[in-house]
């Protein structure tokens, strides 16, 4: 076990300084203003500036357009990005999944130029997984792709295609054999979003994020955009999906988060810090200091316990725990602040950055992103506790079923 502060050598210390200075120079006020306005989780300038230095995916080797960062350097970068507020970096994470599949399953002459642009920040790839009535049941995809010689014609619509409006391609789950068992009739494509017949419609969440419905009407693309074999989409998906769902055992010497829930905990941590600051700067109706208020101290303590629990719970279990903790504690902290806790950023009298008010809205999404907490509870029940699977009509193609 090791929880020591990392003792940086001169090289890493210099890099940390360089990263900090550079990020401060590119994360200008207009970047935050734009993100606050659009909720796109993306900023052209930031991505291209980072990409130009190989810092968009710095863990990749230099020959792939990265910076060959070791684990310490990667951690430095992650923390410095968080210092700047990582919201605009969201699409980087989204793109990273299909990039791996493209490298593995597409012919190099098709994939390489796209990968180069993506790593350099000029191209984004979004995920065309869910459908309007599909829930987390990806293998239930109904979007049809029909082959005609070298070309495919795509029809249907996808829900929750976050970043479609700023992306160049979507990593699309299509149904190519309606007669085969659900998960054996799926093919993956990399669909250029500027193709005729593609319509993108905005959906806004109440945390201010933007996502999209994407309609595909007789969209014709070349077979070269196929990712992996025909009807082999389920296996192609495993790569990215497993990555999304099986973050668990630590091989990094404690330099990576225990789960994707750590990101949720940081949002809770900011709210906790804000409420603590608020308690210092605010006096009770009777004029006394809130830092002496037993109920203030108690609830900050309770929130801290849940923060720590979310941070220290590993893998899929941490993803569920952190979401539950954020949902419950953000609500409790809003209660504690009272009406001021209802005032969002940039409103008269809002406290600080209004991190608590934001956390309360943001929390709800964390229970759904990349699979609901119920999906993950099912995965934990089957794969951690080893409980028998319920025999639902569609259970076999359920996400939780794939690890059989």
């Amino acid at each position: 076990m090791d929880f020591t502060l990392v003792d940086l050598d001169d090289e890493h210390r210099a890099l940390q300084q360089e990263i900090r200075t550079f990020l401060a120079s590119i994360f200008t006020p207009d970047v935050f203003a734009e993100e606050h306005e659009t909720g796109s989780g993306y900023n052209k300038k930031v991505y291209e500036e980072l990409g130009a230095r190989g810092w968009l995916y710095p863990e990749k080797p230099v020959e792939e357009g990265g910076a060959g960062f070791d684990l310490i350097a990667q951690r430095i970068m992650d923390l410095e990005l968080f210092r700047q507020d990582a919201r605009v970096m969201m699409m980087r994470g989204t793109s990273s999944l299909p990039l791996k599949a493209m490298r593995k399953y597409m012919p190099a002459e098709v994939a390489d130029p796209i990968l180069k642009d993506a790593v350099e920040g000029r191209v984004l790839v979004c995920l065309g997984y869910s459908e309007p009535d599909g829930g987390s049941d990806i293998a239930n995809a109904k979007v049809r792709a029909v082959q005609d010689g070298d070309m495919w014609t795509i029809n249907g619509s996808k829900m929750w295609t976050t970043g479609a409006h700023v992306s160049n391609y979507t990593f699309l789950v299509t149904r190519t054999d309606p007669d085969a068992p659900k998960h054996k009739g799926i093919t993956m494509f990399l669909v250029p979003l500027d193709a005729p017949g593609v319509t993108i419609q905005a959906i806004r969440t109440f945390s201010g994020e933007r996502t999209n419905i994407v309609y595909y009407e007789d969209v014709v693309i070349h077979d070269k955009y196929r990712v992996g074999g025909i009807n082999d989409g389920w296996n192609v998906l495993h790569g990215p999906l497993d990555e999304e769902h099986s973050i668990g055992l630590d091989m990094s010497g404690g330099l990576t988060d225990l789960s994707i829930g750590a990101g949720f905990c940081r949002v809770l941590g900011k709210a906790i810090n804000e409420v603590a600051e608020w308690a210092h700067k605010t006096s009770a109706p009777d004029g006394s200091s809130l830092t002496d208020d037993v109920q203030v101290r108690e609830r900050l303590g309770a929130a801290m316990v849940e923060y720590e629990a979310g941070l220290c719970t590993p893998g899929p279990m941490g993803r569920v725990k952190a979401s539950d903790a954020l949902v419950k504690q953000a609500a409790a902290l809003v209660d504690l602040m009272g009406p001021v806790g209802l005032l969002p950023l940039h409103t008269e009298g809002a406290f600080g950055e209004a991190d608590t008010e934001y956390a309360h809205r943001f929390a709800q999404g964390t229970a759904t992103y990349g699979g609901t907490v119920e999906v993950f509870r099912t995965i934990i029940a089957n794969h951690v506790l080893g409980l028998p699977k319920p025999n639902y009509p569609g259970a076999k193609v359920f996400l939780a079923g794939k690890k059989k």
Partner: protein
Amino acid sequence: MDLLELRRQDYTLEEDQQLLLTAFGEFFREQCPTSLVRASEPLGFNQDLWNRLVEMGGTSMGLPESAGGDGAGMVELELVAEEFGRSIAPVPYIEHTVTSRALATAGTSSVLEGALDGSHILALASFPVRAGSPQLVPAGAIANSVLALVGDDLVLFTVDNPPAHVVNQGSTPLSWWDFDAITDQVVIASGSQAKAIYARAHDERMVLMAAALVGMTESALAILVEFSKTRETMGVPIATLQGVAFPMTDVAIGIAGARNIARKAAWYLDHAPDERPELAAIAMVYASQTATHGTQVSAHLQGGLGFTIEADASLYFLRSKGWGSLAGDPQAKLLAIGDHVLNTVK
């Protein structure tokens, strides 16, 4: 507490109460669809709906006949508040009602005429006034007068133009009132009478807010129930999964209890205000817990959809705190409840 009291616990509504409930239920359902709620954001006030509510007697019913009102009690006002909350109506029903009742109790007739016809909107300050610290006042952005406690005096502050609205999570007409700067101040009661009227107004606000949160949560649950019957996963309606059905059941359980407590608390305020002084706070605390949990479950179990502003679930979720917080921190109210328990065993 006395566990052996031979007391009735009869929740049956009188016929006229049932009629009142039905009438206001229809009124809000017809006059206030969620499209109107959305159209009234972010201010959270719709003048036209307010006028219709006045016509319905919504502003006069709670005032004594001596003050030109219809002399309805808290039970009747609570029933209306349930329907008001069910439609999350963008009108200051609660603030205006409890404040005008407080003025009537104090014998202040000056602004009551305008209060009766809805032209003079009244609001209640949540905390005693402290020099140099402005307050966020519920309905303060549309209120002509705000009632507040200043030392031992109950003071009515009146302005020509209410302070600018502050956009907030619950889309209610919040605004900052700097009482120091207001010249039109009228003392309407002093000493123990002032404190008693102020405390009573807060109890009434807690009970009516509890009722509104109950109605709000019922609406949130209703859309989830419909969604869960039609939405399928793994080839079955999600409503058949205990992981979905049980949380919905717990919300329904919370609603059933919170409604009864709110109604019971209203009855005590009408008939035996000194016998269960902590009941209004209990109603508020339990309704707040029920709404926090219920609207969250409603938004979450509708999946990504429930997280979008297009979904009505978002309207209820954002108001569970956006309305609930206006009646004060639930946790803080537990202390007075606990003190009551401690006193009863002394």
